C-alpha cells in the first residue's frame, strides 16, 4: 500500500505483528496522521485525540474486555470501547494480574 508522507505525519513503533497498539515516538495532536512502523511496514492511523511522546495509540477499534497486545503479549484488557486512533492508557485499559481489589470482591461475604 502506498502512503503519502507529509509534514504532519508522526512516528510510532509497533513491536510485534500481533499488537493492536503502537507507541508514539513524538508528541501527537488530534488529526495528525501517525505512521506506525512494524519494522519497515508502515501502517497509517489518524489520531482522534492528543497523544504525548511515549504513550500508546490504538491501531484498531477495541471492544470492551478485548485483550490489548504489546510485544505480542497481553498487557491487559479494554475497560471500555476504544476507538482506532485513541490514546490507550489507564483510563481505558486495566491489568489482569495482581488484582487484589478483585480478589477481595470475590471473597467478600
Amino acid at each position, binding site marked *: 500500500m502506498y502512503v503519502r508522507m507529509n509534514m504532519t505525519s508522526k512516528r510510532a513503533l509497533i513491536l510485534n505483528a500481533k499488537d493492536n497498539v503502537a507507541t508514539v515516538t513524538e508528541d501527537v495532536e488530534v488529526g495528525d496522521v501517525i505512521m506506525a512502523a512494524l519494522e519497515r511496514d508502515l501502517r497509517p492511523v489518524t489520531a482522534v485525540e492528543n497523544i504525548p511522546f511515549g504513550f500508546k495509540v490504538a491501531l484498531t477499534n477495541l471492544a470492551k474486555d478485548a485483550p490489548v497486545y504489546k510485544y505480542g503479549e497481553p498487557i491487559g484488557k479494554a475497560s471500555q470501547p476504544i476507538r482506532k486512533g485513541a490514546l490507550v492508557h489507564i483510563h481505558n485499559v486495566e*491489568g489482569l494480574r495482581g488484582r487484589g*481489589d478483585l480478589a477481595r470482591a470475590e471473597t467478600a461475604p
Partner: protein
Amino acid sequence: MTFLGYERPNGSVGARNHVLVLPPGIIADQICHFVRGTKTVMSADSGSGRTRNDRATIARTWVGLGCNPNVASVIIHGASLGGAYPELRADTLADRIARTGKRVETLHVEGDDTLDAISEGIRRARAMVHEASKLRRRPFSDACLSLGVKCGASDTTSGIAGNPVIGYVFDKLVQAGGTAFFGETTEIIGAEHLLAKRGVDDTVAHAIVDAARRVDEKAKATGQDIRTINPVPANIAGGLTTLEEKSLGAIHKSGSMPIQGVLQYSERPTGRGLYFVDNWMTMTSIFMGYAAAGAQLVLFQLGGGGLMSDAIFYTSGGVVAPLLWTTANQKTRDRAGWLLDVYSGTVIEGTETISEVGERLYHTILDVASGTMTKSETLTRITPNQVYTQEPMF
C-alpha cells in the same frame, strides 16, 4: 576483551580498591568520615528484633559486601545492636569474609567505649588504605566481571530501547564468560512465562514462575489493585499502563541467554552466566544486594519520562560497586544528561541500532571497570540502604 583490575587473593578481580567498614552505625560512619578510600553502609537496620531468616539475609549481605572483589580489606566492629545474635557476631562475619584470603580485622575495644573504637578504627583503616594503595591494576578478561541491573522510573522508552541495549550487553558479557544479575520479581509478573522458557532446566523454570506467583499472591492479599502501587506513579506518567506492560518491557534487560538459576537477595552464584534474583525493585536495596552477590558494577536503566525531579540521580546504592546510569528517553537526556553515563535513545530516533549502542555501553563498562568514574561516583554523599528482608519484625 579486557579491563584493568585489582587481583584479589582468591583470584577475583576488583574494579575498585576500597576498604570496607561494617556493620553500619556511628563507629563505621566516623571511621569513614576520617579516612579516604573507605566505604560503609548507611542503614538503621542492625538485625535486632529480626527473625532468623532475616538475620541470615543481613549477615549474608554484610559478608557479601566484604567478599566483593572491589574491596581490598575489611574492618568489622563489635558494637552493633544486632551483633549479639550468633550470625551477626563480628567474629562470625569476619571469619566468613576472611575465607576470601583478604585482610579482615575485627575491632573490639576494652570497655566497649565508642570513641575509643572510632579512634582505634581510624588508625587501622589508615594503615589498610595505605597498604591497598600499593596494589596496581593489571589487564584481566571481561569474564572476571559481574554486572547487576535495575530498570527504574521506567517508561515506554525503557522496553523499546533502554532495556534491549542492556540486554545486548548482558548477552555479550555472558558469552564472554562473565556473570550478570537481573531481578525485580514484581516486574516479571505477566512476563514470567517468557523467562521460564529460558531456564537451563525445569527446576529453574519452576523457580521463576513460583517467584512471580508468590508476589502476585501477596499483591492479592493486600486487597488493592497492584496498579495503585506498582507500576509506580512515575511509570504511569511515563506512559506505562499496566504491570504486565511494565514487566514485558523490563525483561528485555536480561537479554536472551539461558538463565542459570534463581538467587535470593545478596546470594552469591555458584557458577557464571545469567541469574535471576528474587529481589525487590527499590534502588536503596537492589544494588547493595547485587554488590553483595559479587557485582563489581551496577547499572540503572532509567526511563524518567514521568519523574517529578532529578533527585533520583544522587544515589550511592551499590556501596562498593559504582553505579552507571543509562536512559533511552530523549526528554530525560535533555533534562539531566550531565548526570547520565550513556544515552540509548538513538535507537528510537533511528540513528543507531541496539547493537551499536550496546557496543558503546560495553566499552563504557570496561572503562569504568578499569577506573573511569561514573557520574554518580563523583559524589561524596552516601545514601541510606536497606537490606531486603521479608519477614515480620518483633
